[in-house]
């Protein structure tokens, strides 16, 4: 009966471009709808919470935009001066659309799991390209448009604009994303012809995180800049950066023209923007058939090109592979299986740039604190000169900052220690590796980098402090003065505190990760379930509060409080509670991790 003429068993996909696109987009939305409706309860709750948070932010942005517009009008006594708010908002939307457009186009066009199926099916490749682009971009762009729409409504309310403005606003926000989406798609199609799509995705992720952090870092350290710039100067600057060649600017002028019932102006500016959008998207669709398929084919032949580069890449040296399971250095005290697992993980983590993207944000916090130490040294009573009695306290603060940052980075390796194995966990399960060795290996994968990282950060923070202290002296910040201001005992003790606290945090992370593994992950972001994230914060907080207080407090106030014999008791109690408590936490957590690891995959 299958294939009998005149009977349609499966609905055939439509053959025309538009009908095929509609068919594919509808399938995409069906998948999204099923994901939302039939997903796990916690996921649905998470979506609701995120939607609530977005709604709250939208309300805040409405209020801020309304207040800003009203303030500018009052300050300048020129309502048209406040239109810079609309121009800036549309420019921001355009910039966000560019960023999202590129990354989403890359993921949708080349990294989807269903591409093989779609490109092999009798559906127009042009329709696949367009449907993938629209389906991929739509959710992100919709969110960006809402982010833009709400403040622009606030602006319209403050300016007292009528329905013309709001109608034109919807039109402007519909036209605006077309150009960045097209440019993003063209760039992606062009770059993927040269760089493998997966590698490009990792690089883009890294760049986006680095850019975001750089902006945050500059903003965080610009106290003086902020105080120096007046609102009037800010308005002048914003006016100057309004580019007459930007589609966002054309749309903002069209918007203002519509608000003032200038039909010719509105049509002119909107027409120009629509023309550019059409010029961007239509040729792209026309040539997408060939370009897209060509890029996809090249992506699949990337392995051949890699083969041709044989021997040139760092991991292509046979001697390195042999070292993988050879005990050496600190690892000589552990079994070959432990060594192999540790070395394997420490090789894999940096090779996947998505892991490195997660390292950047905590490291930027470290950079922020180091800059703070250099620019704004901590003094009591507004003193300009160094205060030696503060040194132990500041060293312990450095220890807390260093262990906090190192824990932010390496606790992820602990929590995701088992999830990181993913579908390859069978290898460890089937190997003759006792669970305690496996757990110790996973502990070391997080703990060894923690030791190195926290030690390095303590040294950098204390050197920054010593530099600030030396600079305040009449002799200036010579190398000798900086070295003199560094106290090796304090440095050593600060690292010791980090080492103890790190052991506890890492063990807790590992136990949580073993108890709630996510073995079906595709990216590091998906490895940690939300409940583990929340629980880890509570447990880390409780443990580090006790450990840090007991270990750091006796040293922190050692030069400030005269306790006599009480000082010894304080030290003894602190060390016993700190070290003993950590030993208990580590032993119990690793034991729990070992028992939970046995259940993974059942």
């Amino acid at each position, binding site marked *: *009966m*299958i294939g009998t003429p005149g009977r349609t068993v499966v609905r055939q996909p439509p053959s025309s471009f538009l009908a095929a696109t509609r068919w594919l987009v509808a399938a995409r939305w069906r998948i999204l709808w099923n994901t939302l409706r039939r997903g796990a309860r916690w996921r649905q709750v998470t979506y609701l919470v995120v939607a609530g948070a977005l709604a709250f932010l939208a309300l805040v942005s409405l209020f801020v935009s309304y207040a800003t517009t009203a303030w500018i009008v009052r300050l300048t006594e020129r309502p048209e001066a406040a239109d810079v708010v609309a121009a800036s908002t549309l420019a921001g939307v355009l910039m966000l659309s560019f960023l999202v457009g590129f990354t989403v186009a890359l993921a949708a066009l080349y990294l989807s799991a269903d591409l093989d199926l779609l490109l092999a099916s009798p559906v127009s490749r042009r329709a696949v390209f367009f449907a993938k682009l629209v389906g991929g971009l739509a959710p992100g762009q919709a969110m960006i448009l809402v982010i833009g729409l709400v403040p622009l409504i606030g602006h319209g309310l403050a300016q007292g604009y009528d329905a013309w403005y709001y109608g034109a606003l919807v039109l402007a926000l519909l036209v605006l994303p077309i150009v960045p989406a097209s440019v993003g798609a063209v760039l992606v199609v062009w770059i993927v012809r040269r760089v493998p799509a*997966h590698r490009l995705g990792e690089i883009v992720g890294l760049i986006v995180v680095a850019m975001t952090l750089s902006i945050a870092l500059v903003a965080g350290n610009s106290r003086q800049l902020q105080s120096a710039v007046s609102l009037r100067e800010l308005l002048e600057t914003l006016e100057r950066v309004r580019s007459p060649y930007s589609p966002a600017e054309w749309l903002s002028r069209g918007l203002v023209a519509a608000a003032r019932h200038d039909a010719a102006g509105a049509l002119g500016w909107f027409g120009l923007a629509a023309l550019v959008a059409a010029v961007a998207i239509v040729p792209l669709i026309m040539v997408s058939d060939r370009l897209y398929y060509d890029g996809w084919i090249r992506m699949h032949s*990337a*392995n051949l090109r*890699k*083969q041709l580069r*044989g*021997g040139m890449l760092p*991991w*292509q*040296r*046979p001697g*390195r*592979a*042999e*070292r*993988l*399971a*050879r005990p050496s250095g600190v690892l000589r005290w552990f*079994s*070959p*299986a432990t*060594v*192999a*697992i540790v*070395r*394997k993980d420490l*090789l*894999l983590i940096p*090779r*996947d740039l998505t892991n490195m993207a997660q390292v950047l944000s905590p490291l930027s916090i470290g950079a922020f604190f180091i800059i703070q130490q250099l620019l704004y040294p901590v003094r009591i009573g507004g003193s300009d000169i160094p205060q030696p009695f503060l040194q132990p306290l500041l060293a312990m603060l450095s220890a807390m900052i260093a262990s906090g940052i190192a824990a932010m980075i390496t606790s992820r390796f602990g929590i995701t220690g088992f999830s990181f194995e*993913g*579908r*390859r966990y*069978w*290898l*460890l*399960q*089937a*190997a*003759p*590796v*006792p669970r305690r060795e496996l757990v110790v290996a996973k502990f070391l994968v997080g703990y060894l980098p923690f030791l190195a990282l926290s030690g390095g950060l303590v040294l950098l923070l204390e050197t920054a402090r010593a530099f600030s202290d030396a600079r305040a002296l009449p002799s200036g910040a010579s190398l000798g003065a900086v070295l003199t201001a560094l106290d090796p005992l304090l440095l050593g003790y600060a690292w010791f505190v980090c080492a103890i606290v790190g052991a506890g945090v890492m063990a807790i992370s590992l136990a949580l990760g073993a108890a709630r593994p996510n073995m079906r992950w595709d990216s590091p972001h998906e490895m940690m379930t939300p409940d583990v994230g929340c629980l880890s914060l509570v447990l880390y907080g409780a443990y580090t509060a006790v450990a840090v207080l007991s270990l750091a407090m006796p040293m922190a106030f050692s030069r400030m409080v005269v306790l006599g014999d009480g000082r010894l008791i304080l030290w003894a109690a602190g060390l016993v509670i700190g070290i003993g408590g950590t030993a208990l936490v580590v032993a119990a957590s690793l034991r729990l991790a070992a028992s939970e690891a046995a259940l993974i*995959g*059942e």
Partner: protein
Amino acid sequence: MHDDPTPLPTNVPTTVPASPTAVTTSPDARPPMIVAERLVKHFGDAVAVDGVDLEVYKGEIFGFLGPNGAGKTTTIRLLTGLLTPTSGRALVGGHDVALAPIAARATMAYLPDTPYLYEKLTGREFIHFVAGLYRVTPEHAARRLDELLPLFDLADRADDLIEGYSHGMRQKTLMVAALVHDPEVMFLDEPTIGLDPRSARLMRDILRRLADNGTTVFFSTHILEIAERMCDRIAIIHRGRIVAQGTMAELRQIARQNETLEDIFLEVTGGAAVAELAQVLA
């Protein structure tokens, strides 16, 4: 029943380890290396494996057949200790997989049907990693790699990241990793899927040579022709139960003198109706 093996380097199976504690022996006094005693596995209300009894002897190639979802992979995962049985027990190399898992695993190698490997390791790094897990010294592992990589046609690509490997290359990489520690028992889940004819032939020849040198080979397959030509004994599992077990001659007796393994398979798994349907559709 077997193909003539392709001439292989004599050092492929380098050792035939001393036999562990024997439970029982086959009629020709070979000790059983794999024993399943009333193995049961439930997943919630579903019964995946329902009282499987098996004995596979030293140097035997044992084929494990069954329709999709019959319980083949679950049985292999129970025998390798990747799953804990709901009841019953499994012994590999004389060691109880649940009570002495490390000793049992040290004797075996396992090749799953889907070769999930570490994408960002090179083939050589991956094999050294597995060698480390099995406590093989780096020197010994390097020597074995020099022998095995050319044999599996992997020498040129051994220092590329695995993310660039085809399915067949991954399967062969796993095979090399499995052979690095000279296992006494090998479990293979659909080992020839995704292999080109040359590699599939090589795999069959190597398994035969390993078995001739005393390694016990337990593999599942859908390709009945391979099972018929390679296996010393065959078991057919259907809905979690072993419905037929024995040599080809014994199976022919069970299945009313049907000649081919395909006929026997369809007979004992109730597939005759499927065959009739296929005829109608043809």
